[in-house]
């Protein structure tokens, strides 16, 4: 039989994001100031998708940005902030206090086992951390039960099933064999919990290059690959620090109010025609100053 040839998974950014519908449950990879697929996040914000449930296990400004752009109904996770820049994500905080965005509180380990339960096709996984805390009161999907083996009090953490996972990896080949170099965070679990996966990468490499470190490879059938170099900015990747000044400017705009944040969105989300235009707006001097 003739070999039909292997199909490329590399697609244009907007085409890849067509899988994200209004009302979808979307997992976003990375952690706090690191490894977020920000080029994908900005494109979602630009498109103006609505009513998302965002599962951002250890979130930073990506959640603030999507809330500011009016895309978010609910945030599922364990943290939204940028540490020394903003102890609490300022837009998240205001939206939650004003009742515009709902929070589903989880412990960081609940995110891990909940995503794992989805990957395992189980309704829940047991966990001990959170017993005796306010978690079950705040988030009634967490159910206290007595373990049937030893009779100890535990929590049932329900499966976190995702429509789409947006993940950053440094490289992928054309077939979706992706390798995160030092930025795996919770991403592999997000991918396994999702029906569709979009992987943002700095470089599309040959499969020969992937085969040199096969133990690093993550893959999900049907995943698409988007080429967006430096696309984690302003979060870090494995060789570029977070852009602390950019994060501070964003936090200042968020605190200053609607007009300042609209201006931020105009410059960084709406005006740049594509990812390259965003990088031009940030500037080559700023980008190169972040390389480690």
């Amino acid at each position: 039989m003739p070999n039909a040839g292997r199909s490329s998974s590399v697609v244009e950014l907007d085409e890849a994001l067509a899988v994200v519908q209004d009302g979808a449950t979307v997992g976003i990879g990375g952690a706090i100031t690191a490894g977020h697929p920000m080029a994908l996040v900005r494109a979602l914000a630009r498109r103006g998708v609505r009513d998302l449930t965002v599962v951002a296990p250890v979130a930073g400004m990506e959640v603030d940005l999507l809330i500011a752009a009016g895309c978010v109904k609910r945030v599922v996770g364990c943290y939204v902030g940028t540490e020394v820049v903003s102890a609490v994500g300022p837009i998240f905080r205001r939206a939650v206090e004003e009742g515009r965005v709902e929070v589903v509180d989880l412990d960081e380990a609940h995110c891990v086992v909940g995503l794992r339960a989805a990957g395992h096709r189980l309704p829940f996984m047991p966990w001990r951390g959170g017993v005796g805390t306010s978690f079950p009161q705040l988030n009634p999907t967490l159910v206290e039960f007595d373990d049937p083996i030893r009779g100890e009090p535990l929590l049932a953490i329900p499966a976190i099933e995702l429509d789409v996972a947006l993940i950053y990896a440094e490289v992928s080949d054309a077939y979706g064999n992706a390798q995160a170099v030092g930025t795996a965070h919770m991403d592999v679990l997000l991918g396994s919990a999702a029906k569709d996966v979009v992987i943002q990468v700095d470089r599309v490499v040959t499969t020969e290059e992937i085969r040199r470190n096969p133990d690093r490879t993550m893959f999900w059938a049907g995943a698409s690959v988007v080429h967006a170099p430096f696309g984690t900015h302003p979060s870090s990747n494995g060789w570029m620090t977070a852009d602390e000044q950019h994060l501070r400017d964003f936090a200042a705009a968020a605190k200053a109010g609607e007009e300042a944040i609209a201006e931020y969105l105009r410059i960084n989300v709406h005006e740049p025609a594509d990812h390259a235009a965003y990088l031009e707006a940030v500037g080559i001097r700023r980008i190169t100053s972040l390389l480690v």
Partner: protein
Amino acid sequence: MEPASINELFAILLVRDMRPGDRTIQVGANMPMARAAAVMANLSTHPDARILIGLGVQGLGDGAEPPAVHPFLFDPRTLAAESLMFQSRIFDDMSRPDVFFVGGLQLDQRGNINLFGIPDGQGGWKMRGPGSIGLATMSAHCTGYYIVMPSHSPRTFVERVDLISALGDRTERERLKLPGGGIRLVLSPLGVFDFDDAGDMRVRSLHEGITVDELREATGFELVIPDDVPVTAAPTDDELRLLREQVDVHGTLK
């Protein structure tokens, strides 16, 4: 030598209290003083420990280059390490974390921590915090944890927290069979605290220049105060030199 900043004092007090059996010292988000303490302990009293900071696992006892203290936990420079650790794996070995560090919006008399925020009583939020990160899990399992409170006022030291992110209450921990050892110390800008046999917060020492009256005024509940309250021993020049010259080389804690 220039006197210690409060974060430098916190780092030094944390190192002083670590126990000989502490083999794994793990640091979470937004606690640069704990990152410094982990590195400092590894370079001095705990050469056999592994320290988990950001993405990297380090053992500095063999003379390896210490990682700098960066403003963000997951700085890519923490990748220069002997092993890497990600959230998807970090909870797979819950018998190992010996030491962890916790901060909070509110801390109560029984040692419970709230990092969720302050509810408005109608299903919404009067003040929304960042979320509890991994506090519930780490505080349940680690051999011992330290609470570092950057502010000490009746709003942060409260009789009863509005919500519990990390269960400190010794009686409740025993009833629920939590495996970890619970709170070791509480550090605040005013002093050092632990818990008495009944599980109520007790003063261990007050920092230089702080009076018992100031402490009472700043605390939203009745602390257990011994007759003689010692002054927190000041950082030595050796401690400050190690901290500033080898650990916090960028002055993040200044």
